[in-house]
């Protein structure tokens, strides 16, 4: 409080002394510290006021202040020094002094100083106590000031005769300021009291002035979250324009009034407080109204505010009287935005203020341009609300954001003459000129993309098994709707690039959804009139396939950034695969050549690629193309990191390997839960495909020494199954597959079938397919066929001939199928047999070597290599490299081809070596 008061007195004294409008301004450096920058023009006007006179007088007052300080602590040496400086400064100011007359404060200090020195001189005891330096300085100063004061004799005597006149002025101000000031003037010497006060205020004065100034600024701008105190000034001054004139008169009146009581008696000041306050208020009001011209007085009444009880009120944007124009609103907006991103800015308040601004703008019919502009900024600050990338929006914020975007879109749709664009410069914006099309800077597309990302973030950070997740997921419809609207908007106005981007967004929200309606429609071909209206209405919506086709094709044709196209292709393939359009999906995948260069793209795209491949594999499986399914899934499954590769979770084991940063990045890459591909389904599909491929293969190559594995993972599962000491009924999906594989190995398709398709497996896997029954029938059929093949491979050596009818009974396949399978095997030379047409039997040729023969063949092979190696040693001894023996060796290898079937003969030829 005292701070306000004293500063007030300080600035007041100057202004009153100079008798002119002048503002004591802090040194230039302070500008930088202001939280809000003034607009240019304002600053300029103020600088003009700061004249040469100002400067000189300020210099003088500063010196005087130091002298008074020194006087107070009886530092005569200091006094001497400062007095000399003062003299010089006065000399400099001579020209001004000549014009203006000797400043009163100067006279005052001279008089005071002389009195003070005399006093000291008289005080013998005090003098004795003084140290030598001080004593010396005292005498010097005394002589000097005597000499100096001779020039000002008339002034000083004048002053001494009427000391009140000058002192009163101070006192008056003090009283006016605050209660505490009243008793200060009770000192015998009012002047010294005032001086004392002044001295006291030395330090804070600069600061407080700054503060004051800030407040002035803010009063005009009335917008800063930092000091709420300011708002009350704004509020109290919210009078109507009509009062303006009146206010001006009251200023004079109050001034007059003020003076009267103060000159009477100081002690009455306390009683007058109330009155004063009222006056002050009045004062202030008027002050507000003629803001700029009366800047200097601003200090006067502003300092009072410290004593007034503060009433916190809702922030107001503008002084009530201000005419709300575009310029004002935009200025305000800019001010708010400037605080954005700064330390200590309360983001919530900022958002609130922006919203208020919108309200004001709409209340005052400022046109849509401004509103759009502000809305853009609101959304931007909503996004800014969370400083951390990892954290996600609060639900209410999110809701606000959605609403806001919706509103924005409403406006944009309603006013087709508004142009929105990133590339519109701030200067070229046209927010209110109704004649021309409105131009607003801002990009709706970026906002929507950001919104989509926020949505993803929210989904990532919600526990997928909670009700909360479902709640959030409901917003997805809104998000889609917004994207759709933006898409529509951009289709009208946007550039192709923008359209591509928004299309991609749309695609990203479409591709993973199974289109049940379209599926339904496919199943039931249109029957025409029998359908109810509602059904038809439901069916109105575009098939997602058609939609995808349209969007993707546009992107393929128009997109110039590779990334968007890649994503679009992948999504397209995914969508095809999801809807069992295997051939389209496969062709698109092959044509795009993505497999070759996908490793160069960024991780999210790679994740998308992996997802697509998996979906493709599952699709192939549904079509009964086990081999394709296996191939598509091999890469993902063989790594054992399917979870990570699909972006569906982090692996624990690699937690130690990566640091915090990496983990955060990885966490951000995760796919939200509702997009997940069921990992168990994936693994099951893979294992079953592998089983269908591997078991017949194993049976066919039972005795082959160098047989390769088709699927390592499947073998691993088999081994795990074998290692079990006690084999109970299968529990998990894997155990089921392993058990089924064992049954299949024996050609027992029924057991195999019952292991693969049963209640448990239905629940775990098969029911997850959209056309579960179709898949199951396919699967049974596959199992029958592959079991038949396995059976033939395993047991053909036992048979001389088998009737195909028996086989068809055994495997419950119709005869032509059996016939075709066996024929295929014979053609592929997998089965050494021939078909006897009349009797419908398979006649075995029995040319396959027996186990011993196979062993002997292997042994022969090994011996061959042994001999070869041995010969090398021999070569070495001979000192000849290559040559004769080398050729011979190649001979062995060449012979192997026909030896394979040769059996005994070959063994003999081998032993000959």
């Amino acid at each position, binding site marked *: 409080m005292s701070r306000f008061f004293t500063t007030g007195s300080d600035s007041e004294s100057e202004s009153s002394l100079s008798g002119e409008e002048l503002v004591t301004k802090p040194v230039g450096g302070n500008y930088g510290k202001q939280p809000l920058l003034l607009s240019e023009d304002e600053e300029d006007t103020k600088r003009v006021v700061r004249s040469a006179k100002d400067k000189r007088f300020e210099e003088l007052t500063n010196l005087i202040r130091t002298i008074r300080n020194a006087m107070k602590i009886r530092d005569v040496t200091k006094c001497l020094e400062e007095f000399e400086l003062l003299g010089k400064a006065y000399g400099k100011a001579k020209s001004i002094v000549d014009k203006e007359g000797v400043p009163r404060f100067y006279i005052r200090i001279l008089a005071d100083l002389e009195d003070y020195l005399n006093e000291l001189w008289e005080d013998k005891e005090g003098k004795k106590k003084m140290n030598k330096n001080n004593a010396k300085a005292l005498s010097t100063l005394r002589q000097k000031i005597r000499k100096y004061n001779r020039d000002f004799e008339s002034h000083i005597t004048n002053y001494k005769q009427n000391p009140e006149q000058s002192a009163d002025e101070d006192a008056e101000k003090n009283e006016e300021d605050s209660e505490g000031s009243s008793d200060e003037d009770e000192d015998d010497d009012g002047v010294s009291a005032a001086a004392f006060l002044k001295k006291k205020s030395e330090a804070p004065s600069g600061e407080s002035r700054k503060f004051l100034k800030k407040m002035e600024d803010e009063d005009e701008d009335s917008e800063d979250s930092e000091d709420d105190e300011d708002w009350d000034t704004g509020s109290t001054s919210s009078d109507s324009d009509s009062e303006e004139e009146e206010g001006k008169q009251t200023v004079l009146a109050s001034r007059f009034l003020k003076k009267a009581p103060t000159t009477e008696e100081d002690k009455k000041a306390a009683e007058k407080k109330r009155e004063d306050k009222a006056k002050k208020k009045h004062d202030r009001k008027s002050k507000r109204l003629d803001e700029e011209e009366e800047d200097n007085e601003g200090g006067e009444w502003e300092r009072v505010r410290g004593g007034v009880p503060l009433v916190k009120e809702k922030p107001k944007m503008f002084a009530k009287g201000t005419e709300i124009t575009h310029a004002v609103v935009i200025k305000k907006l800019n001010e708010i935005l400037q605080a954005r991103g700064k330390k200590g800015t309360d983001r919530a308040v900022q958002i609130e203020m922006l919203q208020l601004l919108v309200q004001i703008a709409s209340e005052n019919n400022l046109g849509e341009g401004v509103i759009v502009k502000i809305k853009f900024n609101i959304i931007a600050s909503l996004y800014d609300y969370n400083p951390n990338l990892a954290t996600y929006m609060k639900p209410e914020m999110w809701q606000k954001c959605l609403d806001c975007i919706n509103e924005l879109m409403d406006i944009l749709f309603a006013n087709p003459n508004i142009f929105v664009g990133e590339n519109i410069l701030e200067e070229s914006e046209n927010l209110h000129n109704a004649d021309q099309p409105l131009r607003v800077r801002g990009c709706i597309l970026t906002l929507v993309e950001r919104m989509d990302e926020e949505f993803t973030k929210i989904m990532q950070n919600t526990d997928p098994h909670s009700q909360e997740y479902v709640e959030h997921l409901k917003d997805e419809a809104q998000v889609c709707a917004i994207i759709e609207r933006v898409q529509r908007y951009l289709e009208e106005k946007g550039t192709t690039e923008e359209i591509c981007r928004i299309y991609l967004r749309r695609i990203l929200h479409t591709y993973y959804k199974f289109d049940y309606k379209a599926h339904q429609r496919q199943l039931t071909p249109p029957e025409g009139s029998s359908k109810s209206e509602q059904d038809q209405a439901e069916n109105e919506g575009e098939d997602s396939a058609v939609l995808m086709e349209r969007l993707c094709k546009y992107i393929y044709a128009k997109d110039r950034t590779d990334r968007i196209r890649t994503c679009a292709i992948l999504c397209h393939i995914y969508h095809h695969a999801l809807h069992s359009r295997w051939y389209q999906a496969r062709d698109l995948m092959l044509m795009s050549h993505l497999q070759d260069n996908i490793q160069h793209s960024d991780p999210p795209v790679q994740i998308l690629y992996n997802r697509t491949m998996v979906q493709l594999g599952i699709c192939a499986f549904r079509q009964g193309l086990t081999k394709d399914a296996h191939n598509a899934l091999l890469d993902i499954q063989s790594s054992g990191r399917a979870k990570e590769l699909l972006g569906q979770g982090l692996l624990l084991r690699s937690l130690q390997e990566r640091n915090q940063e990496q983990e955060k990045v990885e966490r951000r890459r995760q796919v939200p839960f509702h997009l997940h591909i069921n990992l168990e389904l994936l693994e099951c599909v893979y294992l079953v495909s592998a089983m269908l491929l591997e078991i017949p293969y194993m049976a066919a190559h039972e005795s082959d020494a160098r047989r390769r594995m088709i699927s390592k993972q499947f073998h691993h599962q088999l081994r795990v199954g074998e290692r079990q000491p006690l084999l109970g009924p299968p529990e998990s999906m894997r155990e089921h597959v392993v058990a089924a594989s064992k049954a299949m190995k024996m050609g027992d398709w029924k057991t195999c079938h019952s292991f693969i398709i049963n209640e448990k497996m239905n629940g775990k896997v098969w029911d997850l397919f959209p056309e579960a029954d179709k898949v199951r029938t396919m699967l049974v059929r596959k199992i029958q066929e592959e079991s038949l093949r396995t059976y033939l491979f395993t047991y053909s050596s036992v048979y001389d001939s088998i009737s195909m009818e028996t086989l068809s009974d055994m495997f419950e396949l119709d005869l032509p199928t059996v016939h075709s399978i066996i024929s295929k095997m014979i053609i592929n030379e997998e089965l050494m047999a021939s078909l006897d047409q009349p009797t419908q039997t398979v006649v075995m040729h029995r040319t396959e070597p*027996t*186990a*011993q023969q196979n*062993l*002997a063949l*292997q*042994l022969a092979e*090994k*011996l061959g*290599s*042994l001999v070869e*190696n*041995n010969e*090398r*040693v021999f070569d*070495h001894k001979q000192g000849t490299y290559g040559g004769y023996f080398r050729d011979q060796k190649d001979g062995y290898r060449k012979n192997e081809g026909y030896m394979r079937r040769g059996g005994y003969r070959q063994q003999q030829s081998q032993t000959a070596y």
Partner: protein
Amino acid sequence: MASRKEGTGSAATSSSSTTGAAGKGKGKGGSGDSAVKQVQIDGLVVLKIIKHYQEEGQGTEVVQGVLLGLVVEDRLEITNCFPFPQHTEDDADFDEVQYQMEMMRSLRHVNIDHLHVGWYQSTYYGSFVTRALLDSQFSYQHAIEESVVLIYDPIKTAQGSLSLKAYRLTPKLMEVCKEKDFSPEALKKGNITFEHMFEEVPIVIKNSHLINVLMWELEKKSAVADKHELLSLASSNHLGKNLQLLMDRVDEMSQDIVKYNTYLRNTSKQQQQKHQYQQRRQQENMQRQSRGEPPLPEEDLSKLFKPHQPPARMDSLLIAGQINTYCQNIKEFTAQNLGKLFMAQALQEYNN
């Protein structure tokens, strides 16, 4: 039953030497003929070995035990045996030597031959030619010159003919082993091939007359059907197993040869380098000499060219020996089987 002319004399020395101290039999090693010409085994020992395997051995696991007996002239008589206890790795403090001594002392108390004359081991399809067997037989033969190792093949025995073989290391091999130098040169010098590693000692199973009488009596009582496993025509399993094992050995052999080959190549390469270096040095010296400078000091070539470590050839020798054994087995087996098959064919024809 057997007399104990020298048995008692050598008892003290031999039993103490099992702990691995005395350097007996060193002098005799050089001579071509070995100390034992024949092994005479008591029926009891055979039965005990078979019983031991039946009770404790299975599959590839082998059982081992100590043979007791004495030497009579050039004949080694094995009159008793006792098994090594199967012990797991948990009880590491188990002292085998202590156990053997204790066992022998106890046997001595009940007036049984307690001279350590060797050891026995079961085998899986004749795969006994290993480093472990070599080492342990070497230490036996080193300590007790007459020691033999009895190899019992339970699988062959199960097929109807008892398979029990006594082996000794040849004196040549003993010599090499003593020097512990298995480099190619040493083996070459020792003139050792896989055929000359082990010598088989003929076995005679001798029973007391009483037992013989009992046997005859039992033979009359037993039906012919009890012996029919001898006539089993099934061959594939056994043959397959043998082939499989043979193949593994051949693989090992191949690897070994490759290793040896690399060694040879490396050494020859080094030799060349060495040679080049020497030549260069010589030329330089010549030049220096012509210029009147002192020749370069001789450097240690072996330091510049560290000779490669030649691979130990013992392993390959053993593998070769093992392959030889397998081959013998297979030959024997197939020969027998062929005979059986012809017989069966003849029978078939006869019946028809």
